[in-house]
């Protein structure tokens, strides 16, 4: 059953259409991420769900109640902010009991719930501390606990991990997943970090300029992006643009570029003459060694190393191929230098063809 239904949400600020006709549903116990670059409308959408913005058009239903125009305190949501927004003049206990006192629970129940919540976020015994005495990760967990302790119908998270350093962020990601699975939380999660979205989401909505570009599971979005924008956003990708020159059996297409490169890839539903972009994921490029490629020698190209960045276990190469630049990662055991001439192989089945927008 869908807990949250958003229908045709629209919000304009001056000349900018921040949210452009957005509709989606969230099922109970699911995590839906709103993913996109800065300014794509994800935060505005979340704020409409929370009640801090009123949409110009459209409706929001929570548990079948129309909450579109309701003030935030009546919606029954729990929200976690990017800056945690813990109240500095209250202790951890004060922060956590605030919402419970509003709901007029008796002290015994409040104490119990707080104890449980602190146990879940692994900060038992921290009741008397002040936010300024906590580290970033601890503050984040208290902010999470504060939203959990009121047992809301849905949790809204606005880039909750952005303020943490990289290592802590990764740790907290897994903690969040555990928490979510254990408690069956329904959540809407806003982030600009595609790795984060991939890890925590049941479904991802890719947004750009206020519009939904694609909705799907992480796997669907990674393997079947609808267009270049999605393909390029969800992972590091190089693009080669061209036109379909020939269609073979098994949905193999031949793409001819302006500088006469012929690249074979696989994608159904295309016609000759279609303008396409071939998305090459960073881990699909192979350095060709003799006899290691397909017998018919398709998709082997000569390139020159432009840049080599040593990353420890791998080296990140940028290779000039005709007028295109292809990025690839390769084990640091092989060491090409800038200026080296190399032969690279692009396996046709692993290339993603996305038609250019008309």
């Amino acid at each position, binding site marked *: 059953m869908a807990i949250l239904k958003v229908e045709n949400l629209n919000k304009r600020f001056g000349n900018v259409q921040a949210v452009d006709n957005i509709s989606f549903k969230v099922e109970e116990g699911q995590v839906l991420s709103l993913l996109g670059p800065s300014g794509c409308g994800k935060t505005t959408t979340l704020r409409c769900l929370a009640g801090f913005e009123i949409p110009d058009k459209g409706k929001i239903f929570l548990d079948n109640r129309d909450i579109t125009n309701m*003030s935030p305190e009546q919606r029954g949501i729990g929200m976690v*902010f990017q800056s945690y*927004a*813990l109240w*500095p*003049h209250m202790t951890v206990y004060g922060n956590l009991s605030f919402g419970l006192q509003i709901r007029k629970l008796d002290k015994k129940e409040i104490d119990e719930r707080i104890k449980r919540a602190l146990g879940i976020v692994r900060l038992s015994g921290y009741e008397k501390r002040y936010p*300024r005495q906590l580290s970033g990760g601890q503050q984040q967990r208290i902010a999470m606990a504060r939203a959990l302790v009121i047992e809301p119908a849905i949790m809204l998270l606005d880039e909750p991990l952005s303020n943490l350093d990289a290592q802590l962020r990764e740790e907290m990601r897994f903690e969040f997943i555990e928490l979510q699975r254990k408690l069956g939380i329904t959540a809407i999660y806003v982030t600009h970090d595609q790795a984060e979205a991939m890890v925590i989401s049941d479904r991802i909505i890719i947004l750009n300029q206020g519009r939904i570009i694609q909705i799907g599971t992480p796997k669907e979005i990674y393997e079947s992006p609808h267009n270049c924008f999605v393909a390029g956003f969800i992972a590091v990708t190089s693009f080669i643009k061209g036109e379909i020159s020939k269609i073979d059996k098994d949905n193999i297409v031949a793409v001819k570029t302006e500088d006469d490169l012929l690249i074979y890839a696989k994608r159904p539903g295309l016609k000759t003459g279609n303008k396409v972009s071939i998305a090459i994921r960073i881990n699909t490029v192979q350095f060709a060694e003799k006899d290691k490629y397909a017998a018919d020698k398709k998709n082997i190209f000569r390139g020159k190393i432009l840049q080599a960045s040593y990353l420890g276990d791998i080296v990140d190469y940028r290779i000039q191929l005709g007028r295109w630049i292809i990025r690839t990662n390769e084990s640091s055991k092989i060491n090409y230098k800038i200026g080296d001439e190399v032969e690279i192989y692009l396996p046709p089945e692993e290339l993603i063809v996305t038609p250019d927008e008309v």
Partner: protein
Amino acid sequence: MNKKEVKKKNKPIVKKTIEMVLFIFFLFILFAPIFSILIWSVAIRWYWPNTMPQEIGFDYWLQALGVTKNLTLGAVNVLPAFFLSLGIAIIVVIISMLVSVPAGYALSKLKIPHILKGLILILFLLPRAFPQQPVFLNLMLLFNKVGLNGTVTGVILVHLVVGLVYAVWITTSTFNSIPPELEEAARSIGASRGRAFLKVTLPLAAPGLIASAVFVFLQSMFEFTGTFFVGLPFVTTLPMTLYSASGSNIQFASVIAILLLIPSIIFMFIIQKLLKAEYIGGISG
């Protein structure tokens, strides 16, 4: 090597001596004027070239406080003026807070176009943007027409005109310094606008709002020019008695000056206790 080592050992002593001298010099500059007034207030006879008064006594103090009534000293009971100043200041603070706290909150939190916000703030600033005497002269002429001259109400209004400038700017910037997410977090968890204000915003804004109140209070106690134009001849505040006395009777004037200073010093103590550093530091957390 010996010479260098000796020089190194002497260096901290030299440094500390210089520090001490500068510190004493600083204290002197800060407190010497008050000290001077203190001496004058208890000087019965002090003629040049003596560095200290020839005769000390509390006569002028007793006159000022209305305990004695010696017409020859030229000092009169200033307690009525003192309590009038105090009373006016308290009323001015109350009205000022009632106006500037909502105004500051609205200008800070509500969605008003920036141009309008700027205009409103400048509107409050305008009275101070012009030379004060012409402004108060004008005020006096206006008040004449509505019969507010020489009334306590008129003086209160004048003090408000001056005080609200600072009050609104201070409260606005105080509310600005509180991140909006703190209130939003309260509302997202179930607090109404009013509850979020009372339990989250107000406690965090308290230091700034108290500062605003103290500022307005002191400003009202010391206000002279406007009060002079509008208050005469019936309303006599303490600064006005000081003005009258300062031309002829230095001892009397010194007593009044100290009486005026007492509230400021008391408030400095109170503020020091109330504005704990943690309060201010905690907001950015």
